[in-house]
């Protein structure tokens, strides 16, 4: 998959050399960083470490597993949101940038429900029931948001050049952010306190997982399995895949293409709703801008995994989440980069750039033939 293979006959252009250089640079950074990390783990007092990162200490297993678990739980959330980007791209061929806001609506409505339940006392007396209610409300609200969005903003643009719905989606995104600020007031709003038990660590194999992170992982895995079943094993899923591949022939089979597109938005919205409530459980607060960064990162995750590919979206999410959690400690810190923990976001986007440089179709993406692209 290198450029040399693709341009067997053609001489390399300046751009090829630039990309080659970039690939080398990123690979070099990763290698050197990991090397320095290994040296530092063996003996923090070796000369290289003393020179690069004076005063370094070994990374303890306790700290490392903390990073792995938070990377995975964050990544699972990215994966859930990424599914919505990927599915909509699959059927309509455009990126719905307002999808991050669908996630935010889930987190917001989850917050409102959770606080109401907290006032009523159910949050404390029966947490499981309370969280189920909150999940149900978030999922319903996110699904509705996604469906209304499709009906009002995107359906009238069916058949327009793809750039038009793309730009519209940015507008929809601002609209939802500001609506939330107007209705609920700007700024951060808190989820009620989680029950004590959820902060305890539970041992699973070599890992000790904080209860709430385990909850996030379990719920994410369950939602993804349900989605997989829907898409791969049901008639609706078959219709969705058919519409994604060829709308004209799908309608020739008698599939209602518009309804299938609505279903796709609804399912993507439901996944974002689940992610929203998980965000609330994990971080405890939500603002009207909560959808922005996770949204962009989930989009990156979808691209990293290969856009249009559902397994890829999940894998991309986990890759991105783990990288941004682990890479600062494993690569940047041993190199003596200051403030490495604040470079999380930069790392996430570097991963995106790196994957695009090395494998432009994403981890699991197929190359689209020009016929498919039209």
């Amino acid at each position: 998959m290198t450029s040399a293979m693709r341009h067997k006959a053609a001489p390399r252009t300046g751009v090829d050399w630039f990309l080659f250089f970039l690939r080398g640079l990123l690979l070099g950074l990763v290698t050197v960083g990991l090397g320095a990390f290994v040296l530092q783990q063996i003996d923090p007092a070796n000369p290289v470490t003393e020179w690069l990162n004076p005063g370094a200490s070994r990374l303890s297993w306790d700290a490392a597993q903390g990073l792995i678990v938070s990377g995975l739980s964050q990544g699972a959330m990215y994966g859930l949101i990424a599914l919505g980007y990927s599915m909509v791209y699959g059927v309509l061929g455009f990126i719905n940038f307002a999808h991050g806001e669908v996630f935010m609506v889930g987190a917001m409505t989850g917050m409102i429900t959770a606080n109401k339940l907290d006032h009523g006392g159910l949050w404390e007396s029966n947490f499981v029931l309370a969280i189920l209610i909150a999940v149900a409300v978030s999922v319903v609200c996110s699904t509705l948001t996604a469906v209304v969005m499709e009906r009002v903003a995107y359906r009238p643009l069916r058949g327009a050049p793809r750039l038009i719905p793309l730009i519209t989606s940015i507008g929809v995104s601002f609209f939802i952010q500001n609506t939330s600020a107007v209705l609920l007031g700007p700024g951060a709003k808190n989820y009620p306190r989680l029950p004590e038990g959820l902060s305890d660590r539970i041992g699973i194999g070599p890992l000790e997982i904080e209860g709430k992170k385990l909850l996030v992982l379990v719920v994410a895995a369950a939602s993804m399995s349900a989605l997989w079943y829907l898409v791969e094993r049901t008639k609706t899923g078959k219709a969705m895949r058919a519409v994604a591949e060829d709308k004209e022939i799908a309608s020739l089979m008698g599939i209602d293409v518009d309804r299938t597109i609505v279903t796709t938005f609804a399912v993507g919205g439901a996944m974002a709703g689940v992610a929203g409530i998980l965000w609330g459980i994990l971080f405890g607060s939500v603002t009207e801008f909560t959808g922005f960064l996770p949204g962009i990162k989930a989009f990156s995750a979808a691209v990293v995994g290969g856009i249009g590919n559902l397994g890829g979206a999940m894998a991309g999410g986990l890759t991105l989440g783990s990288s941004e959690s682990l890479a600062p400690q494993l690569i940047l810190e041993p190199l003596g980069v200051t403030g490495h923990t604040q470079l999380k976001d930069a790392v996430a986007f570097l991963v995106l750039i790196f994957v695009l440089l090395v494998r432009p179709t994403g981890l699991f993406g197929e190359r689209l033939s020009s016929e498919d692209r039209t």
Partner: protein
Amino acid sequence: MSNANGATPLLEFRGVNTHYGAVHILKDVDLAIYPGELVCLLGGNASGKSTTLKTLLGMVTPTTGDVILDGERVNGKPTSYLVERGVTMVPENRRLFKRLTVKENLELGAYLRSDRDGIQSDLERVYSMFPRVKERLNQKSGTLSGGEQQMVAMGRALMSNPRVLLMDEPSMGLAPALVQTNFELIQQIHEEGVAIFMVEQNANMALSIADRGWVLQTGRVVLDDSAEALLANPELRASYLGDGNR
């Protein structure tokens, strides 16, 4: 208009005119397809063949004139309405869902049906007609050879249990040996009692198996006759059946 079986037409065009914007495509077209017959519509590029098919399937609504299915006026009805009532098409170049398995492609052909037993027996029918399809059920249909894909495309169409099967350029893009096989498949389906309306450029081949045919020229039906008569028609021989076409 000739009537092959003395019955009422299954699918009919009565004075159909269609427009794309200001462009007049079909001009006063009359067609009638009777139950169980094999008919073909011949015509060169831009003669209005595809528009005829799209109109028959409800994808294009006539500006004037009527499309009649089984005595019911179906102008402007959605495609699914027509598919449910026994009209279906094998599209040009097959257009299988390449990322779906052969089985899933066949199942999508029966998308609008809910009679499990009927679907199962139609699946069996497709398997017995095309044993090679059965061997490849769980393969992605994009990995099949051209001939196998053609079988799946026909099988998919048969899964809707059609009374009339529209075929858009069945010989297009196939190797000559496959064209022959393909026409044999069409005859095989015809023998099962399905009416076939075939749109073709390969006039020789089409007329050799058809009962009747029409010739369309710039949106107008210029010839309407039995297949033998058309094969012998000097005008048609000159324009479509030239020796180069053999």
